[in-house]
């Protein structure tokens, strides 16, 4: 039921969403002197009780498999809460003929509690796509304009890496990287032979103390959430300084439904459902920063209908929901016999790769546009559910001989994953489903998805590259190996059917969890929603601060750029507030 008496309090800024973008905005805006209220659709986070760091699988009755063995569909029982492919009562739909999956986190900090921590800057050319090859569009800002904000973010959150001068993969402010694991030494050697650039990775994990956070203790469990906050999460790194200002209010379990337009043409309130009571509430503010994740932000704006904006708030262009992209993904695993000879040793390291391959063919004439980077991992990690299904399927039988085979195979697999750039196309977008609402009564998103020819060619190139790396390193390719690709495990598509091999080469849309572009920025209000400050062309006190504003989706994982762009947007908002413009 609508609450008719608006509360008296009017905040300076209401931020919707507490992830990478919302957290950054909260820190910058509160430290700049503004009062901020933040709506988060899930509960508050308590790392000491919510994280399963350092727990052995045998200390949980389900051993990491989850209730009924179903946790593998959500990356396992150990994952930091709360990330799901499907949320009960909060569905989304997919148009006939399309295939798309949407990973969401409903908790303070959002997906930053368990993300891969890969922190790569976009390069100068990534902001000039159309000028470079005629496809897609240019951003309304350049790399040079964003670079100072990359510096600020890296200095504050802590990123390890090395200065390498790789074209279009800019260096940043780096802490020292960890030493390579055996698996990485082997792959690096093969890459040197193949003239594929292989350098220390760039992850938002600190190897030296920073702002009171202790350095990484090398347990390899970043995905579980870090009790010492030695990796970056919005909940542990961005929100605490906002709280310390005394100007920050977090409202958990607040499911934003829409933003209400005032008579003056400015947004005046956010309507949300209190999930603990089911009641509808409103919070008033002078400005709104929508940072609910690219698709959720599009959903909120599309659902904010008024007589001025019948197709959604700030949507006079009609492009909200359009230009949806995800990264091109493809994976392959290899078995490396030389790893069987390795003595038992601590192989954990940080929770992610210590080395990676940035796009090494930049500027060359390739048979597809844009590029991809390669992530890889494997070796003697903590044994987990599903780890030996491949060995069991290959050797079959039972008894001591199978047991010994599992032991000799342990730690000998390295998996490779490509992450490449998708060019936006008109058949990939999200919109409001006209027939379906969620349990809170809020209309849900319907997804449409299609990979283009360029993406299919790129995925094939990834496969060819992985194969040559595996073979050059003295390994053999594992076809349909169950650990090859978490996505396939999640999907139950464990064995690749020969007739489907071509389709299976490329990931399902959404499953790389780099969905973005749905509320894009640009200089032309007819073809974009936001101006170069991520401020709505149509409604001057509405800003977007997640990956929705992105104009391109280069092969670099989006989180670092979400934070840099949010920081820049927040600086602009602070400046406007000081001038009395908002």
């Amino acid at each position, binding site marked *: 039921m609508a609450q008719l008496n608006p509360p008296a309090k009017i905040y300076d800024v209401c931020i919707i969403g507490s992830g990478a973008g919302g957290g950054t905005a909260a820190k910058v805006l509160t430290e700049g002197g503004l009062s901020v209220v933040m709506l988060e659709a899930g509960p508050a986070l308590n*790392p*000491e009780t919510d994280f399963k760091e*350092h*727990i*052995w*699988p*045998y*200390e949980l*009755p*389900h*051993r*990491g*498999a989850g*209730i*009924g*063995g*179903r946790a593998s569909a959500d990356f396992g029982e150990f994952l930091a809460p709360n990330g799901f492919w499907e949320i009960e009562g909060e569905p989304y739909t997919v148009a006939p003929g399309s295939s798309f999956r949407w990973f969401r986190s409903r908790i303070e900090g959002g997906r930053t509690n368990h993300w891969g921590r890969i922190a790569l800057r976009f390069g100068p050319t990534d902001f000039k796509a159309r000028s470079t090859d005629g496809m897609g569009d240019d951003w309304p800002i350049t790399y040079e304009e964003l670079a100072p904000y990359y510096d600020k973010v890296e200095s504050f959150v802590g990123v390890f890496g090395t200065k390498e001068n790789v074209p279009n993969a800019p260096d940043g402010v780096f802490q020292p990287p*960890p*030493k390579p*694991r*055996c698996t*990485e*030494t082997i792959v690096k050697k093969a890459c040197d032979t193949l003239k594929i650039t292989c350098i220390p990775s760039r992850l938002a994990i600190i190897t030296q103390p920073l702002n009171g956070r*202790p*350095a990484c*203790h*090398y*347990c390899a*469990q970043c995905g579980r959430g870090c*009790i*010492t906050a030695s990796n970056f999460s919005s909940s542990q790194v961005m929100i605490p300084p906002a709280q310390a200002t005394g100007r920050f209010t977090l409202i958990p379990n607040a499911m934003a439904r829409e933003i209400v337009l005032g008579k003056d043409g400015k947004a005046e309130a956010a309507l949300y459902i209190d999930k603990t009571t089911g009641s509808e509430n409103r919070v008033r503010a002078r400005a709104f920063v929508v940072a609910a994740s690219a698709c959720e932000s599009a959903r909120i704006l599309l659902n904010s209908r008024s007589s001025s904006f019948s197709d959604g708030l700030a949507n006079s262009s009609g492009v909200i929901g359009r230009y949806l992209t995800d990264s091109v993904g493809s994976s392959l695993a290899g078995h490396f016999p*030389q*790893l069987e*000879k*390795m*003595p*038992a*040793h*601590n*192989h*954990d390291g*940080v929770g992610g790769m210590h080395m990676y391959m940035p796009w090494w063919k930049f500027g060359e004439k390739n048979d597809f546009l844009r590029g991809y980077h390669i992530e890889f991992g494997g070796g*003697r*990690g*903590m*044994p987990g*559910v*599903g*780890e*030996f299904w491949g060995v*069991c399927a290959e050797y*079959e*039988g*039972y008894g*001591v001989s*199978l*047991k010994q085979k*599992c*032991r000799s195979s*342990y730690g000998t697999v390295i998996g490779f994953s490509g992450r490449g750039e998708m060019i936006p196309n008109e058949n990939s977008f999200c919109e409001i489903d006209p027939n379906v609402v969620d349990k809170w009564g809020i209309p849900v998103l319907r997804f449409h998805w299609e990979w283009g020819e360029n993406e299919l060619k790129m995925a094939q190139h990834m496969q060819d590259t992985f194969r040559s790396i595996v073979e050059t390193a003295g390994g053999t390719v594992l076809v349909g190996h169950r650990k090859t690709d978490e996505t396939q495990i999640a999907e139950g598509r464990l064995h690749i059917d020969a007739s489907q091999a071509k389709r299976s080469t490329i990931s399902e849309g959404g499953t790389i969890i780099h969905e973005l572009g749905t509320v894009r920025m640009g200089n032309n209000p007819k073809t974009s929603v936001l101006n170069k400050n991520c401020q709505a062309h149509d409604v001057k006190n509405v800003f977007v601060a997640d990956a929705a504003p992105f104009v391109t989706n280069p092969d670099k994982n989006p989180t670092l750029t979400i934070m840099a762009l949010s920081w820049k947007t927040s600086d602009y908002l602070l400046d406007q507030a000081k001038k009395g413009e908002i």
Partner: protein
Amino acid sequence: MSGNSISRRSILKALSMGAVAGSVLRVIPLEAAEYAHGLIAAEKADAKTGAYTPKFFPPQQYKTLQSLCGTIFPADADSGGAVEAGAPEFIDLLTSENPEYQLKLGGGLMWLDATCVDRYGKSYLDCSSQQQKELLDRIAYRKNAMSDASLSQGVEFFSFLRDLTADGFFTSKIGIEYLGYIGNTFLTDFPGCPPVPGV
């Protein structure tokens, strides 16, 4: 132990002491272990009350399940087997929560007994070890189902059970030690790959 006895603060303290000591490879296993144990104290509280009571499988089927788990990954000179590792309990728990598992494993065990009665005139557990081996050798390999279609359901069942038994065994303390995994601890520095010829 009352709940979460080791706080984040005490871990931070332990870590900073490690840093001051300047050891290249300072491990703080006690703090780590106590922290983990604190978190799971509640979950484990009822696990110590004696013999396990199956949640899904009737007693006779559960005995068959235990026997099969022990045959798939038996104890040997190097370690205990899947039964000591708790694989049957783990499989029973998951099955009690998942109708698909109930069909595959409950139905599979009934297929196994029915096939034994057909071939040997008695249930699997009552068969001689030679008879048990003869049947398992048939259903443990996919290629046998190609030449004898009457085995295909048995092959599917055994393959599924083998995967779950591997999960139960290799996620146990016994199984993890058998593999030689070293880690899940606190290091102040990561040593990288040890020197090994050829790597």
